[in-house]
């Protein structure tokens, strides 16, 4: 396991604004119980690390978490708080 790099809060953003090619960590969710349950069952829970593979600023965001690729709608992505971990 890699050690978590020390980050300032300036690295915090939402998934909808996360740039492709960079690794992020999920730090929180501004959504209901239902949404929380859904995304975590698909492998995206708090503290999970993932890479953004597609995000054009419109439409859904594509991420790679572990060996899973997920497409996440823009509305949902805007509610997922993330923190930048490293540049790839």
């Amino acid at each position: 396991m890699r050690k978590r790099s020390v980050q300032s809060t300036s690295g915090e953003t939402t998934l909808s604004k996360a740039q492709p090619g960079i690794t992020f960590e999920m730090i929180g969710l501004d959504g209901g119980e239902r949404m929380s349950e859904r995304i975590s069952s698909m492998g995206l829970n708090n503290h999970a690390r993932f890479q953004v593979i597609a995000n054009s600023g419109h439409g859904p965001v594509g991420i790679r978490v572990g060996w899973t690729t997920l497409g996440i709608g823009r509305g949902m992505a805007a509610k997922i708080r993330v923190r930048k971990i490293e540049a790839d």
Partner: protein
Amino acid sequence: MAIAGNPNSGKTTIFNNLTGANQHVGNYPGVTVEKKEGWLDLDGRRLKLVDLPGTYSLSAHSIEEVVARNYIIEQKPDVVIDVVDASNIERNLYLTTQLLELDVPVVLALNMSDQAEKRGIITDHKLLSQLLGVASVPTVGNKKKGMQELLKAAIAVADNQDVYQPFTVNYGKEFEQELETLTQLVEQDNSVIGNCPPRWVALKLLEDDPEVIKKVGQQKTAAAIFAAADESRERLEALLGEAPSAVISDRRYGFISGACSEAVQFSGEKRHSVSDTIDLMLIHPSLGLPIFAFLMWMMFTLTFTLGKMPMEWIEWGVGVLAGFARSVLPEGLLSSLIVDGIIAGVGGVIVFLPNIVLLFLAIAILEDTGYMARAAFVMDRIMHRIGLHGKSFIPMLIGFGCTVPAYMGARIIEDRSDRLVTMHATGFMSCGARLPVYILVCGAFWPENAGNVVFSIYALGVLVAVGTIKLLRGTRFRGMSEPFIMELPPYRVPTVRSLVIHMWERSWMYIRKAGTIILAFSIIMWVLMTFPRLDSYSQDYHVLIDDATASYEVGNMSDTELDSLVTGYESAMAAESIRNSLMGRFGMLIEPAIEPLGFDWRMGVALISGFAAKEVVVSTMGTVYGVGEVDEESGSLRGRLAGDPLYSPLIAYAFLVFVLLYIPCMAAMAVFLRETGSFKELAFQIGYTTGLAWVMAFVVYQGGRLLGLD
């Protein structure tokens, strides 16, 4: 025995291996949307296996989850085989933690263990078994490895259930305290939720699970339980600073990573794969959509060009069969029933089989390679603007082939409102069966421009679908669509076997429809159009035909003159008898209702028969216009339509609009009812489509007349 697991974990492959069944295995989340059953015999025992739909979780967010969960709770299988994708073990174990809480014996199949090794993921299954308190067996489903061991382990657990002692997730001291209090409360009254483990019910109450709340709500003590649950939730949120469900999933993953850190070795660091590289292109912000559009264009072009030849063979075969039947059967009612009723009716539908098979093959390829999920991803941006998300696009796409599988495909949409809106709009995607009607009518009225006119009808269908979605979103199904989240499965090269199974399953449905519903309706229509029989006609056609023949024999007439005269008399005779038949009378009865659209009773009869199947409209028109057997290429029917003084291109266009929009066929409506389980929605669908068809045809016809187009 039940088989549970994540989508794409290889559940269905294991099910097929164990039972020898041939269920379709796809590479598209939600292939197993309903549970499938199979049997196997082992050591003189007959075991029942149920393949549950693939789920990520056992909450109540989608139909699949509810189906899987209710099966386990209500049927209490002796053992649940939990198929875990070993190459993606942490996420797959998330479902496992929930299965363990349901108090059913579980055995883990660590599937795709070969792929996991390739990825540098090595699982010590014995240690994992100890840590979870659950037996686990490494398997490779597609190579049939580990099947016997898996069966043995499952049977051992099923036979000795009392020894089974799994570890479950500990949610932390405060949380467990609240859970304990709530569990005791639930235990006091289990009149409705009797089958569910009390701790699980308490947990679900903290998670705000709608299904469980509904069930508990039916009990006398509901109010007290709900109040306690609300209090617990508030206390926990204040204490832990997070919603209980977030805590629950965090703890579950904590439990999993605890077990995995001991039993699983991850050595492969770089998590890039070929799939990622392909995805860079296929879901690229600017390339994705053009690639998608190109693939769709290819799909439709191939379907129609490759289908042309076999279509001609089938047409030829049907013609030969009809000719043969006519020659061996004595002329009369029986011959007419078989040739005009059955062979013409069923034959007219079977002709489209090549197109349907090819379209389903194309869809199977898109699904099995993993592209379909990307299509949903790419379309999400556009679908979002009209109020749905990307997943709704797939049933609508399938709707261009046939509405029946399209309605079934809508199951992948979790939210009921989203699903209903999608289904109400799907019927407007012009299905393959409507095409023959367009080809016939366009050939008659716009021989030069038929292609463009047909395209305009398809485009109108899409526009109406979009309008319908907007309308329903603004009225009956208000609110935002459910957020979109979908797994994009790894790309795979589809196996021929899988494609064939997939194609066959759906095509067989079409053939069955031709053999049952359409056969029955062909006979019914024939009866309605034949009886009561007319004894005397306005002219004695038989005498006229005899006269003409006599005149030909003495040399006053050429072959062609005789032919055209005789055909004319026969047509006039048939038209008179149909006008007198039950169907003709019914057509006359409803004529006032469709007169404002420019339609006459004959069109009315054709439209009504189209409820059996849209392609029947063509064969009925052939009968009503008294030209005998027809298909959409039929020159004589086209000539009759074009030459009829009552008709104009404007009326023809209004007719096409009506055919596009009015009630989908009987088979589609039966599936609609089964899928929605709601007569109310069915009534709405029937009323809305047909009402809209009337209004739109009215606007086209009357508007066109005002503009002087008639």
